[in-house]
């Protein structure tokens, strides 16, 4: 059975109906908004404008988050209260401890290295010829899905037995230097580090773009003054660039850290979480949706949430401080 346009037609029809119905509903809403009762406070208008979004958020985020928290204290079917059992399971099972260790490795390496690479590149190409082209090259992976990125890198790590032609770049380089080709993705903990490379590859572009904007915001007079004082490149970086971009740098670091904590697609596509590469988000999916362990899956989700909270609080604070300075 191959591709046939007839099989696809119902999908496209439903797409049109869905969008048309939605826009019609919004049209009605905007029509009635100006025909409500006139009151001191604009309750009628507020509720019409806000109701669709707020109902969706209450039903789809607020209630589920509360429910998941409850589920994390109940058994696999979500029916009986089991107290802290899921949490003790989480911190005692060797399998889950490996998952937690891997998540730690991700958070330690990915944000720092992606930000460092992005910062270095932003400085190197700043005000040079071909700057925008050079930036596009690093930035491009941002548009690629994690699944696509994973396939790209799986191909880099591909293995053929020694003696055969290598098809993966990494093993070819190893062979050129006289080494033995490796099954890169099968050996922990190196395989986790190689998966982290994929995230760094994607996120460095983000760090680079945001930091580059911040570098360009440094006033010319300051750089000029430093040059007259005879500072070298390192001193200029250490005493001018770094302090100026520091607030942005923390925001970038934290943003990437939050992304890193939730990383799922890369692990799932490259190893499926096997060979000791699983991380919290992947394990949460496996427990809740593959093994039907709702309690354990929910406990992992809650733990992820708890890890994210302090990061976001710091981020909000930095954001507010920056806004106040402006």
């Amino acid at each position, binding site marked *: 059975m*191959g*591709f046939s346009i007839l099989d696809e037609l119902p*999908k496209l029809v439903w797409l049109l109906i869905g969008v048309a119905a*939605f*826009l019609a509903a*919004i049209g009605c809403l*905007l*029509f009635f*908004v*100006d025909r409500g009762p006139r009151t001191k406070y604009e309750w009628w*208008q507020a509720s019409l*404008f*806000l109701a*669709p*979004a*707020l109902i969706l958020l209450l*039903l*789809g*985020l607020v209630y*589920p*988050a509360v429910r*998941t928290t409850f589920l994390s204290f109940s058994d696999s079917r979500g029916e009986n209260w089991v107290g802290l059992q899921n949490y003790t399971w989480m911190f005692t099972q060797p399998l889950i401890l490996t998952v937690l260790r891997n998540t730690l490795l991700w958070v330690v390496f990915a944000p720092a290295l992606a930000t460092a690479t992005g910062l*270095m590149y932003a400085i*190197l190409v700043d005000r040079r010829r071909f700057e925008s082209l*050079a930036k*596009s*090259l690093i930035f491009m*992976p941002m*548009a690629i*899905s994690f*699944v*696509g990125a*994973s396939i*790209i890198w*799986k*191909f880099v790590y591909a293995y053929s037995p020694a003696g*055969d*032609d290598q*098809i*993966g*770049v990494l093993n*070819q380089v190893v062979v050129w230097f006289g080494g033995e080709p490796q099954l890169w993705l099968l050996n922990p903990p190196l395989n986790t580090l190689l998966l982290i490379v994929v995230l760094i590859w994607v996120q*460095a572009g983000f760090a680079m773009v945001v930091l580059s*904007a911040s570098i360009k915001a440094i006033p010319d007079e300051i750089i000029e003054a430093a040059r007259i004082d*005879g500072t070298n490149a390192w001193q200029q970086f250490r005493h001018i660039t770094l302090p100026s971009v520091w607030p942005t740098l923390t925001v970038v670091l934290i943003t990437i850290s*939050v*992304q890193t904590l939730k990383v799922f*697609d890369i692990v799932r*596509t490259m190893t499926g979480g096997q060979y000791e590469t699983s991380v919290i988000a992947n394990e949460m*999916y496996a427990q*809740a*949706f593959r093994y039907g362990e709702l309690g354990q*899956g929910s406990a992992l*989700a*809650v733990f*992820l*949430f708890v890890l*994210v909270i302090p990061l*976001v609080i710091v981020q909000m604070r930095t*954001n507010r401080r920056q806004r106040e300075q402006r």
Partner: protein
Amino acid sequence: MTSTPTPPVGGLPAKAPGKTVDRSRESSAARVRKRLSTTAASVVAVVIATVWTLPTAGLLISSFRPEEEIKNTGWWTFFTDPQITLRNYGDVLFGTASQGQLASYFVNSFVITVPSTVFVVVLAALAAYALAWVDFPGRDWVFLGVFALQIVPLQMSLVPLLSFFSEGVTVAGVQLMPAWDLQGALAFTNVWVAHTIFGLPLGIFLLHNFVSQLPRSLFEAARVDGAGHGVLFRRVVVPLVVPALVSLAIFQFLWVWNDLLVALIFAGGGVETAPLTVRLAELAGTRGEEWQRLTAGAFVSIIVPLLVFFSLQRYFVRGLLAGSVKG
């Protein structure tokens, strides 16, 4: 250093020739040093750019090589022995189900992404407008609540949200919403709703930043003319925040098109609703050595976001700088 008063440079050379020579020697040494460091900087930049581009280039080149070549020789041999074929793309797009049948999944990705983007942009614009300009008590608290929702990882809502669709909503024994047992193309609705929910907090926040910065006088003038909020929203606000709407649309589009997790749970794995990402992840798992399919398949899924990205890069960057990164 800065405290020493610097003499005016103007008439110096005539007065102190010795010093000038000194200074020019120093500056030529500095120039050499500077050129060296610029060269080193260029080399490092080129190395990074190469490392960042090579993996994608390798995959792109491979996708056009014949199956036998891909599986037995490195893609770099293409430069000494170029062989080009479009067969991989033909097979993976229009071939049998086991070859990928990606054309159907491509349609699915499209059908999932377009409504999920439209819904979020429109609903977020409405909500952002109300939170910025409609007068009602408790407005700031509602905004704070929506703002805070950005930190909830979507993992927290997956299990209960899925049960809404499969079992309906029951409050105190009363069935408020029946189970959505949607079949065939109608099953896309689940994914639309899920993506819309997950996109709203960031969307509202981002648009609120823009909408709330419009000048107050604009609204006062229109109110004097007797315009209501509906008219104001359509005629005044929307045209003024078009760039922000485009930014949000690009982000949501890329996010939904590239998403794997939400699709896995709410779209299932079948050819009827699953998007490209789900199918590719599956092929990478079950047919991990079939590189002729994976390389071409990966590019089928990458090409759309790349086109969107390169044609609208300006808006994308502006959105990034406004803080639109979804967790």
